């Protein structure tokens, strides 16, 4: 987990980071709808194509080999690869690296989601299983993020966080 942040070298500096004015505010999850205005349609066309392509390729591999082996590719990082590259191009490498750090938490929750689906799909209706698993992913991701911030695995640097007016 050491890749989540650059750890302060001693306890006092760690406390300084945790206690830095406004640090909790910087790490607090927020929703800013005004960022939608910056959305570039071309980026979403690329993401749509990547998502669609990975879905089809995973199904084809499952058809040619086994459904289990094809299933691996439903978690292929093509979308992450596209996102990180687009963020790197538009905002810089540091925001891209920070996006990947958050992605690790989402991926941990994704593992749990796949396990929940495996365990529930034959026991309850398919729609209930998938909706429940999405709920598990969302709640677990949020809890992991809050935990990671609380124990110091994640700290948002002010230089890494851009406001819409910066761009």
């Amino acid at each position, binding site marked *: 987990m050491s890749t989540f942040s650059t750890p302060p070298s001693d306890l006092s500096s760690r406390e300084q980071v945790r206690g830095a004015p406004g640090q909790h505010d910087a790490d607090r999850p927020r929703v800013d709808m005004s960022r939608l205005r910056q959305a570039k349609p071309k980026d979403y066309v690329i993401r749509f194509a990547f998502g*669609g392509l990975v879905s089809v390729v995973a199904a084809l591999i499952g058809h040619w080999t086994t459904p289990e082996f094809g299933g691996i590719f439903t978690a292929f990082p093509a979308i992450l690869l596209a996102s990180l590259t687009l963020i790197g191009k538009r905002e810089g490498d540091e925001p891209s690296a920070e996006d990947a750090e958050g992605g690790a938490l989402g991926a941990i929750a994704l593992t749990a989601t*796949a396990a929940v689906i495996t365990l529930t799909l034959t026991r309850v209706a398919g729609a209930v299983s998938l909706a429940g698993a999405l709920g598990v992913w969302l709640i677990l991701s949020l809890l992991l993020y809050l935990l990671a911030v609380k124990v110091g695995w994640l700290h948002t640097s002010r230089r890494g966080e851009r406001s819409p007016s910066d761009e």
Partner: protein
Amino acid sequence: MQLVSYAARFFAGGALVCVFALISAVCTPKRFAGIFSAAPSVLVASLAITLVAQNSAKAVSTAEGAIAGAVGLIAYCLVSTPAIRRFKSLAGSGLAVIAWSAVAVGMFIVLDKVIPR
């Protein structure tokens, strides 16, 4: 019929990826937004189509494989973070695919022995 199923997978997968990308775009800080880059968009879209076009047994098998792929995705993120800082976004995130492949296939082999068929 099979062509329709693949077309449905393409549109469902692409649409869900865009939905989560839009959620990620409005979220801040960047590390929090990053969570949505690893959302189960392709997994859920694929399983929904498999349930409609095939059966739940095939969907369960696909989900079992997805566990291995998701563990590989954790490795991908852990490797890509320092790799991006060292080699830039495109090269760093591209190189990390090697980590995903190794861990996902390794985990698949382990799970294949552990999960009873």
